């Protein structure tokens, strides 16, 4: 008689991790399909519809391309902060702050064309940086938990943008009365609707991965992130590194807000982030601390979001779509854990 049991391994191979994820996503889709079949939909037809609409047409691919830009950046923002052991739950607020600052420059600064874009980019990054400045200093000097501070500042930024877009900066005589006038400076598009923000986001992710892996600074950041006491043991200026990394994290989220304004929406309006800041947390979790992994996780998240939009046009409610999204993430998390296990056979 052979006896089978599970054995947990301390680390997992990349192949096993990837396999577990693919399995998890497939399983989530099967479960979703069964449920859809129960409520009278044809899951296969819907699935085909999703795949052909998002991957089979240039329209679908362009939508994906636009969605993936902010997701890469907010995911990167959260991932970078994680490297030093900080949870930036405020990418949402920094996104808004960046969009706000970039719009201010775009609307009011006497700059033209390319210079206006550069100004908006600097302002966007700076806006995000300012928005995380207080949480960063509070964590560094008073050990105030950044989870709370960054989260709470989100609401401030969201309401600030609602205020200016429906009041102070509102487009007078506009149609909706809930957005600023159109900002003239626009990031040029290089493929259909997709603008140069996409290569910028990808390059930024690669650059962060490089900084972390191939610089002395990156090594110190990873070290402190893994064990702050080790930083003390080595005499590394842990506080300075913490502040720097958190400010970079905020600036990246702020830049995401600027790209959304200058590349995609062209006006500041309430709800402009589409929850990209919070979705960035999920992207970061899926990327498991890898800056390059963020690119792929963001692509997956964009595909899920895009599928959701398509499914909604097919008569599925938002709740159903959210449930399927949740199912995929949930099973992926379980798959990540299970990839540590293997079945062994006891000889008896």
């Amino acid at each position, binding site marked *: 008689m052979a006896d089978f049991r599970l054995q947990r391994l301390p680390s997992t191979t990349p192949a096993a991790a990837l396999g577990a994820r693919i399995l998890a996503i497939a399983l989530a889709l099967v479960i979703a399909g069964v449920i859809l079949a129960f409520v009278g939909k044809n899951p296969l037809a819907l699935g085909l519809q999703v795949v052909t609409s998002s991957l089979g047409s240039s329209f679908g691919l362009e939508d994906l391309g636009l969605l993936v830009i902010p997701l890469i950046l907010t995911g990167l923002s959260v991932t970078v902060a994680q490297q030093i052991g900080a949870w930036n739950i405020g990418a949402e607020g920094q996104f808004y702050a960046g969009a706000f600052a970039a719009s201010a420059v775009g609307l009011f600064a006497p700059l033209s064309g390319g210079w206006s874009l550069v100004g908006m980019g600097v302002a966007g990054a700076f806006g995000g940086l300012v928005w995380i400045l207080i949480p960063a200093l509070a964590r560094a000097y008073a050990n105030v938990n950044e989870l709370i501070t960054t989260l709470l500042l989100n609401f401030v930024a969201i309401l600030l943008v609602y205020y200016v877009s429906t009041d102070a900066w509102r487009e007078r005589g506009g149609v909706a009365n809930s957005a600023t006038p159109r900002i003239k400076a626009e990031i040029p598009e290089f493929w259909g609707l997709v603008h140069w923000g996409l290569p910028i986001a990808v390059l930024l992710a690669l650059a962060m991965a490089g900084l972390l892996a*191939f*610089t002395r600074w990156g090594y110190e950041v990873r070290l402190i992130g*893994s064990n702050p006491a080790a930083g003390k043991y*080595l005499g590394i200026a842990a506080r300075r590194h913490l502040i720097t990394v958190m400010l970079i994290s905020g600036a990246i989220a702020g830049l995401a807000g600027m790209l959304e304004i200058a590349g995609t929406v062209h006006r500041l309006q309430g709800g402009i982030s589409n929850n990209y800041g919070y979705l960035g947390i999920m992207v970061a979790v899926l990327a498991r601390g890898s800056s390059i992994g963020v690119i792929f996780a963001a692509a997956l998240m964009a595909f899920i979001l895009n599928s959701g939009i398509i499914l909604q046009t097919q008569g599925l409610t938002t709740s159903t779509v959210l449930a399927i999204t949740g199912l995929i993430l949930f099973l992926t998390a379980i798959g990540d854990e299970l990839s540590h296990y293997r079945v062994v056979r006891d000889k008896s």
Partner: protein
Amino acid sequence: MTEPSHRYVVPTGAAPLVQLKGIAKYFPGVIANQDVDLEVMPGEIHALLGENGAGKSTLMNILTGIYQPDAGEIIIDGYACQFASPVQAIAAGIGMVHQHFKLVNAFTVAENIHLGWSETPRRASAPALEERTAALAQKFNLQVKPSARITELSTGEQQRVEILRVLARKARVLILDEPTAVLTPAEARELFKALRDFVSTGNAVIFISHKLDEVLEISDRITILRGGRKAGTELAADCTPAKLARLMVGRDIVLADMRARPPGAAAVSSSPVLRLRDVSVLNDNGHTALHGISLDVRAGEILGIAGVAGNGQRELSQVLTGTRPAATGVIEIDGHAIAHANAADFVRRGIGHIPEDRLHSGLAPGLSITANAVMREYAKPPVTIAGIFRPRAAKALARQIASVADVAIPDFAMPIRNLSGGNQQRLVARREMRIASKILVAAYPSRGLDVGAINTMLRYIVDLRNAGAGIVLISEELEELLNLSDRIAVLYEGRIMGVLDNDRVDIDEIGLMMGGRLRGEKGAAHG
């Protein structure tokens, strides 16, 4: 050797109090126990001896219901038992005192004794609990202060509370996991006396240790575990330390005097390399942990720091390596006073540090073995050139350190927390020795290592001394200090009780100093 005055005489034909038969326990990739038999008679002190990782703790965790065996039987008083939890084991009369006490620090002794105990009166005032505790203390002849809070007690007193707590629950088998590791010699003698009293009424003690001498002193029989299997059970009277060491490691171990210098070894320098002058240091809570300490460390010597853990050793090792600032006093390296202590600066000056809690302060557990191995040299070529960190060069250096440390590493990208404690310790030691051109501060370097690995570790330290570095060796093992040190300083409650030359050392005197007497206070013997 003192024989207990009232030995318990086992009635003929009596069943063993505890009998384990063919116990096996497997963990992922590890055989923790296999085919282990153990028999403990009433009235016996039975020692369980073995290297780290020999399976002693696993076996006791099975006996106390923390783990369930994968095979084998537990027989108590002749009846087969199965313990699904520690509660069932204590109900069967088996209690354990762990190495790390499980007491509630903010509670009084009486409250700790009565915590989670079915016999605790439902409505009891503090005086009532204290009265009950005093009665229990009287009954078992264990001196405790019922109204004292645990934080106010010394380690020895805390241990007594733990033992009393187990005995109050009518334990007939008392398991002690390395009980003397935290005690002064005097406290250990008191413990031994209490244990002999306990077994004289037909109870039994299982005594886990890796200290050969004390095992021979206290126990009646000794069971030796090796690699998860039983290597034998011997009568203590038939054993010698050498025989036990052989059974334990499967080869002969020489506990040699390692102070002798081979030809060509660096001589002890005349002037100190590292000097503390009236240095006081605060601990994390802002209390003074070191009171005006003065110490000299010379090149080519080993300065041993003796003392019971928790008397300022941690702060001493930190102030010597720049990881904790001195509140007052002067630190001099090569005659130059250091104004602002900074660990990186000390490293540049050639001072290495094997910290006492390597996983928490000397390593980044979640990072790769490579990242951890290069922690001291990441900032300079070949690992970093012009600010660029070179993973390939880092891995080459890590490989080099691992090979010198004799640690086999399957995958350098694996998080270092996956390595065993002993292998982590070897890597840290080798990493620090590479940079310790002037001074190595080694806090408990052999802690967590088995006998064979300890010898290797001590040999490393001696080699470094021969190469001309000054060594500060902080240890609780007197034997280790005596074997290695040229001079021994005794630390007690943040003060140096005295510095002794190893040639004229008197173990009793060190023991007294560890207990708080100043050097020469012993009486006329040295007068």
